[in-house]
């Protein structure tokens, strides 16, 4: 399924990505041309899949999950949401939510301030009881108890229209501590009428149905099963599988078996979850070497991992072993949702022309070669990842010379009236690979007339970056969107109002301040439709390009290996470019 096209992606990733993915779309049964690629066969139900996980989850409670891979894979197996993202390799399709537990993708009224969803008939918990509107209401109330339900996304806290304190935090303390009056205030904001749940917000949220398709902050939760922090590792499933014993063991994992109370008729298996294997053995090993060992076994295709997939990406030194021969058939190279960029400190490099000269003279191709080449990264032309809805190359950077345009940079510096060499201090998170990559950039900047010193930093890197009076001129940073909306990229990184205080620039590492930009963000936040919002945000991104608020570097790529008996292996925007568990089957 789409596997051959994936290899097209690997070969021409730098430019043809969007097209290749778009051409891929969904489940293709049109033969594999006899290449012997077993993954092109349609998957069949049955069998056992091994899921090799090389790190520890933080929770099994839907309202406390924040790892992208866990959100994506558990959406396909145990936790259905009101809406969900479909399993398509086309990011346009997989970034558009479809109905899951709800009958449709929700009804937005009042300019995005009110959302209503109606639950389907016949949707059940694994214990056989119906999923009710009250379960959704209860689930939505839990993140407010942020002393108990910790670790999950907390966007709803600032949106749901319950009375707020002077500092903007909610007065509602969550279901455990609320007085009857507070509970009533919450149930007014998130109200039930039969099977219809209505969310009332204090400000517009036009892509709410997309936010909850990936994140589980308003997933249903059965009140009688809630033991607060004690149910951190309990899983009460409503999906096609359930965990044996109803628990996930953080350090060992668990076994997923069929949930007999799940009715595929209430679901859309083709789009949302094929649920092919009869059993999924979730095996956790978080030792330092586990990820590399899993992949070594997968490369060899040793018998006990032939039916296995893993959360661990191939290590750089393993990449070239899988570029030829049989292992290449089981290898996947995709663009990840993570984009790296440089911020220029607006306080120390005040002239936008100088900032632009820095961006133009950067040898991006050399930088990527030093990171490990085209298998590891591809050049980025915006801070917005290609997998995000509303991605558009930033006009300021779309046509730059990726080898570093030294002459253009020199001309700009001259235009800016710079005398002598401009001293620049460049900070990044130290590692042998990044030391090399930045020495390449240093060389190209020095050629253009800068005098660059590199400052590789340790574990407190982001704290240093947040400091408003740092002496750093350029800094490396990386970002991945929480849900595929530009609203989760530009505002958190460049809106100066929530970020900049006397003691910190927070996520606005370059301390970028622009009233024009902030105005566009406000207009986007208050937009009446997703399209209008995207248009405003693209305008804001173009402004950032002109002001050189950031310099796009690269989109990281993910490298995956899977066993020879695994069918339907692919990754989607919905699965954060991790293996899309909903499509995967096992050959017997």
């Amino acid at each position: 399924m789409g596997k051959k096209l994936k290899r097209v992606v690997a070969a021409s990733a730098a430019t043809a990505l969007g097209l290749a993915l778009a051409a891929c779309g969904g489940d293709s049964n049109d033969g594999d041309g006899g290449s012997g690629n077993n993954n092109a066969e349609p998957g069949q139900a049955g069998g056992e899949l091994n899921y090799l996980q090389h790190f520890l989850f933080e929770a099994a409670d839907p309202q406390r999950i924040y790892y992208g891979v866990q959100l994506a894979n558990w959406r396909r197996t145990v936790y259905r949401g009101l809406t969900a993202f479909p399993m398509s390799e086309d990011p346009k399709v997989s970034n558009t939510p479809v109905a899951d537990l709800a009958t449709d993708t929700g009804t937005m009224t009042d300019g995005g301030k009110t959302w209503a969803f109606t639950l389907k008939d016949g949707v059940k918990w694994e214990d056989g009881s119906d999923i009710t509107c009250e379960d959704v209401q209860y689930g939505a109330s839990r993140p407010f108890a942020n002393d108990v339900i910790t670790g999950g996304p907390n966007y709803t806290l600032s949106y749901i229209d319950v009375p707020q304190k002077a500092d903007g935090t909610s007065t509602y303390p969550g279901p455990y501590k609320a007085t009857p009056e507070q509970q009533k205030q919450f149930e007014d904001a998130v109200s039930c009428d039969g099977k219809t749940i209505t969310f009332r917000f204090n400000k517009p949220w036009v892509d709410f149905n997309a936010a909850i398709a990936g994140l589980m902050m308003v997933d249903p939760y059965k009140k009688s099963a809630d033991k607060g922090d004690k149910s951190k590792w309990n899983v009460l499933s409503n999906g096609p599988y359930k965990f044996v014993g109803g628990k996930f063991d953080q350090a060992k994992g668990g076994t997923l078996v069929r949930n007999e109370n799940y009715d595929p008729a209430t679901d859309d298996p083709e789009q949302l979850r094929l649920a092919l294997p009869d059993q999924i053995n979730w095996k956790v090993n978080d030792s330092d070497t586990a990820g590399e060992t899993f992949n070594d076994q997968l490369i060899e295709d040793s018998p006990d991992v032939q039916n296995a997939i893993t959360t661990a990406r191939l290590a750089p030194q393993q990449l070239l072993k899988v570029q030829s021969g049989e292992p290449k058939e089981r290898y996947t190279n995709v663009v990840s949702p993570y984009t790296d960029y440089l911020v220029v400190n607006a306080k120390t490099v005040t002239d936008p022309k100088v900032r632009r000269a820095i961006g133009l003279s950067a040898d991006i191709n050399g930088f990527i070669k030093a990171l490990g080449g085209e298998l590891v990264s591809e050049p980025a032309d915006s801070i917005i990842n290609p997998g995000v809805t509303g991605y558009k190359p930033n006009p300021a950077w779309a046509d730059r010379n990726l080898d570093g345009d030294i002459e253009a940079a020199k001309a700009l510096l001259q235009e800016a009236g710079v005398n002598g060499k401009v001293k620049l201090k460049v900070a990044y998170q130290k590692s042998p690979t990044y030391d090399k990559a930045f020495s390449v950039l240093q060389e190209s900047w020095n050629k253009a007339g800068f005098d660059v010193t590199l400052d590789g930093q340790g574990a407190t890197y982001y704290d240093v970056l947040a400091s408003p009076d740092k002496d750093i001129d350029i800094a490396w940073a990386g970002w991945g969107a929480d849900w595929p909306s530009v609203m989760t990229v530009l505002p958190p990184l460049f809106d100066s109002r929530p970020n900049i205080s006397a003691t910190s620039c927070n996520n606005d590492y370059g301390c970028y301040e622009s009233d024009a930009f902030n105005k566009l963000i406000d207009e986007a936040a208050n937009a009446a439709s997703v399209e209008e919002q995207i248009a405003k945000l693209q305008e804001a991104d173009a402004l950032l390009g002109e002001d050189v608020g950031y310099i796009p570097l690269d989109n990281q790529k993910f490298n995956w290996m899977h066993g020879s008996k695994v069918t339907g292996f692919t990754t989607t925007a919905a699965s954060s470019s991790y293996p899309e568990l909903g499509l995967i089957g096992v050959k017997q």
Partner: protein
Amino acid sequence: MSTTEPKLGAEAAGAAVDIAAPVTSVASKSPMQLAMGRLRKDKLTLISLAFVVFFILAALTAPLAVHVFNIIDPLKTNQDALDSFGRPNAAWGGISWSHPLGLEPSVGRDTLSRVWYGLTFSLLIALSATIIAMVLGVVLGIVSGAAGGWVDAIIGRIIDLTLAFPQTLMLLALSTTGLIMVRTYLHTPAGNVTAAVYVVIVLGAFGWTSIARIVRGQVLSLREREFVHAAQMMGASRTRIYFREILPNLWAPILVSFTLMMPAFVSAEAALSFLGVGIAAPTPTLGNILTDSVRYADIVATYFFVPAIVIAAIVVSFNLLGDGLRDALDPKSDR
């Protein structure tokens, strides 16, 4: 080298056969001449001496080649010579006329330049550490051996304590604190200078014990010799006896220890670099080139073997030279 003993026997036998030769011609050889004679016959030691001289000359000329003549540039990247995965285009790790030892994967810096210049830093660190260890060891060894009594006992216990110290572990555990201390008390600029000073101090501070023990043993017998007693009778000060009377008789074990300690510190620098302590890239040392190359060992093997072979060659040649010197200077030494 056990071959030395039969040779001596042959020499003696030859002398016995040649009855006509005057006995005085043998007796007239000074110990130095005897040692040189033995050394000249030891081909292996002469070859290793040539290697050692070569490495030292290379280390001395590298800064000139980089900064004066600009023949080599250990920092210049040549990414045009790499493929899209960051591997050198040419076979054998990018070996060509312009890059005789190939290229560093991912950035394409010239391996010959890096190894050549790295040799300077590695040998400089090893030499500095050896000198510190030697001075400490010789002084404490002489004092311990000549003074005897409670001084000897205390120094002996200090040696035991130093040997019992888990030095590699402590070196790593204390590296953060150690670097800060070096920077504060010695006022070195942060970064590589501090790191190098720290490594030199630590290697020196833990490396002096073996030479101290050897020297002490020698001094124990020397201090009973007539010339020492004579000096004492004439009222010579302790310092004079230690450093004017005893020290000149110790040059043989000192020289041998020196040649054996250098290679140990060259490989110690490489090991420490692997563990993340020491001069950091892009400034090359043999240790950090080797550390870096390990990551590419199965992709670009040439890049891995070049620093590995150079380190091995240094260690082996210095060791063989040291062994040869010991045999030549003290043929009765029991190994």
